[in-house]
C-alpha cells in the first residue's frame, strides 16, 4: 500500500513536470496544445466543404473526418512522444526514486488527458454548432479511446527502447508512419472498398481504432472490417516486447 502511494506520488510529480516541459509556463501554452489539433481538423473540414464533398457516411463531414484524424493524431502523439522519453529524461535518473519506465507512464497519462480535452472541446463545439451528432454508443467511444491509448503506449514503449539502441530510429519511424493517414480510413469509408483492399487494410491496427470510434459515434455504422480483438492483441503483443526490451536494456542505458 505504501509503495503504491509512493508510486502514485512519483507519477503525479512527473506528470506535472511534463506538463510544464511541454506546454510552457503560461496556461495559454496548454490552451494552444488543445486548440491547435482541434483547429487543424476544423480547417480540413472547411476546405473539403468548400469543394462540396458529401460525407462518406452520416450527415456531418466534420464528424467523419474528426473521428479519423483525432484518433490518428492521438496515436501519433503517443508513439512519437514516448520515443524520446529516455533521451529527454536522462537528468531525472539522478533521483533514485524515478525509474525510466515511469517517464513512459507519465507521458501517456498527460497526452491521454490532453486528448480527452481536445475531443470534448471539438465534438462539444460541433454539437452546439448544430453540425454534430451525439455519440450513439458512448461506451464504445470510451473503448475506442482506451484501445488507441493502449496501442500508442505499446508502440511508443517499443519506439523508446529501439531509439535508445539505434539512433537512426526516429527518422526511420517517421518514414514508416507517414502513410498512416491514408491507410486508416480518414477520407473514405473502409467498408465500401473492394474486399482485396479490405483484406490488406485489416492489418493496420489504427484503422480498427478509427472504425471502433465510428461504431460508437454512429448507431448504424456496421463496419465490414472492424474487429475489436485485433488492435488489442497487437497492442499486448508489442507491449510485451517493449516492456521486456526495456527491462533487458535497462543496464546499458544506466551507464553514465
Amino acid at each position, binding site marked *: 500500500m505504501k509503495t503504491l502511494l509512493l508510486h502514485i*506520488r*512519483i507519477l*503525479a*510529480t512527473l506528470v*506535472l*513536470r511534463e506538463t*510544464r*516541459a511541454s506546454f510552457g*509556463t503560461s496556461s495559454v501554452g496548454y490552451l494552444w496544445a488543445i486548440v491547435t489539433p482541434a483547429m487543424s481538423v476544423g480547417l480540413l473540414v472547411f476546405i473539403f466543404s468548400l469543394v462540396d464533398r458529401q460525407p462518406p457516411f452520416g450527415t456531418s463531414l466534420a464528424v467523419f473526418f474528426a473521428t479519423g484524424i483525432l484518433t490518428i493524431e492521438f496515436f501519433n502523439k503517443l508513439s512519437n512522444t514516448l520515443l524520446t522519453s529516455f533521451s529527454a529524461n536522462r*537528468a*531525472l*535518473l*539522478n*533521483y*533514485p*526514486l*524515478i525509474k525510466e519506465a515511469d517517464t513512459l507512464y507519465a507521458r501517456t497519462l498527460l497526452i491521454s488527458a490532453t486528448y480527452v480535452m481536445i475531443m470534448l472541446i471539438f465534438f462539444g463545439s460541433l454539437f452546439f454548432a448544430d453540425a454534430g451528432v451525439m455519440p450513439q454508443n458512448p461506451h464504445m467511444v470510451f473503448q475506442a479511446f482506451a484501445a488507441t491509448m493502449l496501442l500508442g503506449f505499446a508502440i511508443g514503449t517499443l519506439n523508446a527502447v529501439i531509439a535508445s539502441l539505434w539512433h537512426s530510429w526516429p527518422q526511420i519511424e517517421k518514414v514508416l508512419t507517414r502513410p498512416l493517414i491514408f491507410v486508416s480510413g480518414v477520407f473514405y469509408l473502409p467498408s465500401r472498398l473492394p474486399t482485396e483492399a479490405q483484406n490488406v487494410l485489416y492489418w493496420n491496427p489504427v484503422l480498427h481504432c478509427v472504425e471502433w470510434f465510428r461504431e460508437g459515434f454512429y448507431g448504424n455504422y456496421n463496419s465490414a472490417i472492424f474487429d475489436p480483438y485485433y488492435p488489442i492483441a497487437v497492442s499486448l503483443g508489442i507491449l510485451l516486447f517493449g516492456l521486456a526490451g526495456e527491462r533487458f536494456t*535497462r*543496464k546499458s542505458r*544506466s*551507464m*553514465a
Partner: protein
Amino acid sequence: MIELNCVSKGYKLKGVRKQILDKASIRIPRDQNIAILGRNGAGKSTLMRVIAGVELPDSGQVMRSSKVSWPLGFKGGFNSTMTGVENIKFVSRLYGHDSRAVIDYVADFSELGKSLKLPVKTYSNGMKARLAFGLSMAIDFDTYLIDEITAVGDQSFKRKSKAVFDEKLSGRQIIMISHSMQTIRKYCSAGLFLEGGKLYYYDNIEEIIRDYKLMLAQ
C-alpha cells in the same frame, strides 16, 4: 543498513573493459559515517551511484533499509529550461515535502533571490552549486551520499554551508567521497577502501587513511 551482496559492475568504453566492482560484498552499519577511499579512477563515484540505486549493478544485489539520498554533488538533476523554483518544487513533490517550505528554505540559504524565477540555464556554475546544495539540505534522508560537495562559493558562503551541513547532518548517516583527509577525519568514523574491484571495510578511520597514503606512496 546498506548491504551489497556479491555486486559486480563494469564498463566497456571504446573497447576497453573496466571492472569497478568484482563480486564485492559489504555491510555498511547505520551508526557509522563512512568515507569512501580509493585511487583516482577506481570508481568511487560509480560505487556511490550503485549504492544510491541510480545505477544498476551487472549482477548481485544492493539492499537499503533506510531512506538514502541521491548522490549529492555540484550539479543536481536540474532541468535547465525550468526555473529554479520549478526545479525545487519538482524535487520536493517527488520526496513528499511541502514545496512552499522547501522553496523558502532554499531561497534563504542559496541567496539566489530573484534568479530563482529564471531558467536554470541562465545560472553560473556557482549559482547551480548553491541551488543543488541548498536543495539537498532541505530534503530529509537517513543517509546522505556526498560526492565532493563541501566546498562551493566564496569564503562567507563556505562558512554558512558548513554550519548548515553540520547542523543538518548531525544524527544522520553520511557516506562521503572527499580528497581532503581533514574533512574525512572530521566527519567519518569508518571507511570503505575500493581497490581492484574489491571493497574493504575499516572500522578505524586512521587505519584506512594510513593504508590509503601507503598506497599513494607506492
